[in-house]
C-alpha cells in the first residue's frame, strides 16, 4: 500500500491515481518525459493483481489498451508528443467504438523530436483534433502532483461514464515536479464502475445513438458474442455504411459530450465578478499566472482568474457570457497560441483577447503575463 502522504513527482502521482481509480492494465512505450509513469506501473501493477506490458511502440500500446478495456479492464497508457501522434488513429477508433480508456500525455516541446526534456503545452489542439473525423474527447489538465493523482481518478470515472477516451494533458514540469501528495483511504475515493449490461443476453445491444445516454457494456468472454468495429455501425455494432447512419453515429459521439458539458467541465474561478481582465490558463501555467495576477491586483487592477481543469470540452458558455462584461482576456500558454483560439472564437470580438505565448521549453516569466494584463486593462 502506498503511504498516505508522500513527496512524489507528478508522473508517479498519475500512476498511483490510476491504480486508485481501479486501473489494472497498462501498455506503453518509453518516451521522455512520461517514462516514469510506465516505470512506476511496471513495479506497482503486479502488486495489485494488475498487468503491465511494454509494447513495441505507441501504436501497439493504445491497441492493447483498447483490447484490455473490451475485456473489462480499466486500462491506460502514457506517452508524450511523438507517441501521442502515433496513437491518434486508434484514439479515433476508441472514440468511434466508444471504448473507455485513459491516455496520459506528458507534454514536451515540439514539433517533431523538439525539446524532449523541456516543458510545453503544445498538444492541446492535437488532443482535440488529432484523429481524423468528427468526434469528441475529454481532456483534463493537472497543475500539481496532487492534481495528477486526483484527475487520474476523475479521468477513469469520466471515461467509464461516457465511454470515451479521456486525456490527462500534463507536462514535463508537473510530471517531474516533486510535491506533497495526499492519497486518501480507498473508501474515500469516489470510483465509477463501468455500466455493465444487466438484462437478458438477447436484448444486449452494444450501442445506442440517442445523443445523450451511453449504452451499457459487456466483457469479452461473458457469452454475449458482441461485435465491435471502427466502421460506421448500427446498434448491434454491425457495419451500416449509409449517410443516414453516419450522421446518427457522429451526432451521438458529439452530443453525448456536448449535452453534458455542465457535468463534465470543471473550471476554477477567482475574482471574476467585477473584473476588467480575466486571465485564462491551465496546468502549470495557471500557477505562474496567479503570481502575475497577485502583482496586478497589488497595482490596483481588477483581475479575475479562470483555471481550466477541463480544457475539452471547452467552457464555451462561460467565455461568451464574460466577453460582454470585461475589457479583455489574457491567455498565457506554453505554445504559440492554441486555446486562445477558442477564447477568441467564443468572445466573438466583444473584448480584447491577448495571447501570451511561449514556444515551449520554459514556463512563463510572470512579468510577461503582467504586461499583458496591463495591456488588456487599458
Amino acid at each position, binding site marked *: 500500500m502506498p503511504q498516505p*502522504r*508522500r*513527496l512524489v513527482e507528478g508522473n508517479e502521482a498519475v500512476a498511483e491515481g490510476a491504480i486508485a481509480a481501479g486501473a489494472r492494465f497498462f501498455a506503453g512505450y518509453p518516451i*521522455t*518525459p512520461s517514462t516514469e509513469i510506465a516505470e512506476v506501473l511496471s513495479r506497482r501493477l503486479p502488486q495489485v493483481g494488475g498487468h503491465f506490458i511494454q509494447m513495441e511502440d505507441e501504436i501497439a500500446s493504445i491497441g492493447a489498451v483498447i483490447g484490455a478495456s473490451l475485456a473489462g479492464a480499466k486500462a491506460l497508457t502514457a506517452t508524450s508528443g511523438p507517441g501521442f501522434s502515433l496513437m491518434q488513429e486508434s484514439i479515433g477508433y476508441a472514440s468511434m467504438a466508444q471504448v473507455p480508456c485513459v491516455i496520459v500525455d506528458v507534454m514536451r516541446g515540439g514539433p517533431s523530436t523538439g525539446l*524532449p*526534456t*523541456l516543458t510545453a503545452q503544445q498538444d492541446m489542439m492535437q488532443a482535440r483534433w488529432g484523429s481524423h473525423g468528427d468526434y469528441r474527447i475529454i481532456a483534463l489538465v493537472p497543475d500539481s502532483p496532487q492534481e495528477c493523482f486526483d484527475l487520474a481518478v476523475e479521468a477513469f470515472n469520466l471515461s467509464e461514464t461516457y465511454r470515451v477516451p479521456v486525456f490527462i494533458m500534463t507536462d*514535463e*514540469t508537473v510530471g*517531474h*515536479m*516533486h*510535491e*506533497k501528495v495526499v492519497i486518501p483511504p480507498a473508501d474515500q475515493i469516489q470510483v465509477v464502475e463501468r455500466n455493465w449490461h444487466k438484462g437478458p443476453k438477447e436484448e444486449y445491444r452494444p450501442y445506442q445513438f440517442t445523443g445523450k445516454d451511453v449504452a451499457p457494456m459487456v466483457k469479452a468472454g461473458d457469452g454475449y458474442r458482441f461485435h465491435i468495429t471502427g466502421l460506421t455501425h448500427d446498434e448491434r455494432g454491425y457495419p451500416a455504411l449509409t449517410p443516414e447512419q453516419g450522421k446518427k453515429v457522429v451526432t451521438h459521439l458529439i452530443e453525448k459530450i456536448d449535452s453534458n458539458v455542465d457535468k463534465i467541465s470543471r473550471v476554477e474561478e477567482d475574482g471574476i465578478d467585477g473584473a476588467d481582465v480575466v486571465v485564462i490558463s491551465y496546468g*502549470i501555467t495557471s*500557477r*505562474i499566472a*496567479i*503570481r502575475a495576477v497577485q502583482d496586478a491586483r497589488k497595482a490596483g487592477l481588477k483581475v479575475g482568474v479562470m483555471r481550466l481543469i477541463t480544457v475539452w470540452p471547452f467552457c464555451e458558455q462561460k467565455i461568451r457570457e464574460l466577453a460582454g462584461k470585461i475589457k479583455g482576456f489574457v491567455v498565457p500558454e506554453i505554445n504559440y497560441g492554441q486555446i486562445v483560439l477558442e477564447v477568441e472564437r467564443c468572445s466573438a470580438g466583444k473584448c480584447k483577447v491577448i495571447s501570451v505565448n511561449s514556444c515551449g521549453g520554459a*514556463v512563463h516569466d*510572470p512579468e510577461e503575463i503582467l504586461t499583458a494584463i496591463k495591456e488588456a486593462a487599458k
Partner: protein
Amino acid sequence: MWEIKFSGFGGQGIVRCALITGKAISLYDGKFATMTQSFGPEARGGACQSQLIISDNRVLYPYCTVPGVLIALSQEAFDLYEPGLGDGGILIYEEELVKPSGDAARVKRYPIPATRFAEEAGNRLFTNLVVLGFFSAVTGACSADAMKKALPGLVPDRFLSKNIAAFDKGYEFGVAQSGAVAAGAAQ
C-alpha cells in the same frame, strides 16, 4: 520563502539532498515545498542541479528566480550558479572541491570539508548527508528533526544510522561555524 539550489556533478547525491529536504519540509515541518531538477541527457553525469522552493503558502512558481541559498559541490557548479545567487545569499560549498573566486563579501560563504567528514563517518558516499546537516544548521530553513524523519525510504535502510551520523557531523560543524542557528528556527 526560500529558493534553494543544490548543485554539483552526477553521483554526488544532489537530487537526493533536494528530495530529503523537500520531504522534510512538506511532511514534517508543516510548510510547502516544490522540488524540480535538471532532467534529461544533461542529468546523466556531468553538471547536476536541483531546485527547491520552500514557502509558508502554496508554491506558485516552481523554479528559483533569485536563489537565496546555493549549495555547490563542484567547481563547475560554483562557476555556473554562483553569479545567480542573490546578494547577501548563502553559499555552501565543499572546500576541497571548490575554489571560490569573485567578490567574497557579496554573499555569505560557508565552506565545509564534507568529503573528509564523510570519510571519517565511514564512506565518502555520505558526503551529501554531511552537507545537508550543515545546510540545516547554517540556514535554519529546515529542522534537523524533520530532516532525520525524512531519511527512511530515501537512503538505504542498512545505512540509515551512518547517514544520520554523517548528518549530525555536518550539523554540529554548521552550528559551530554560523554561531548557532537554532534547529527549526525560521528566517
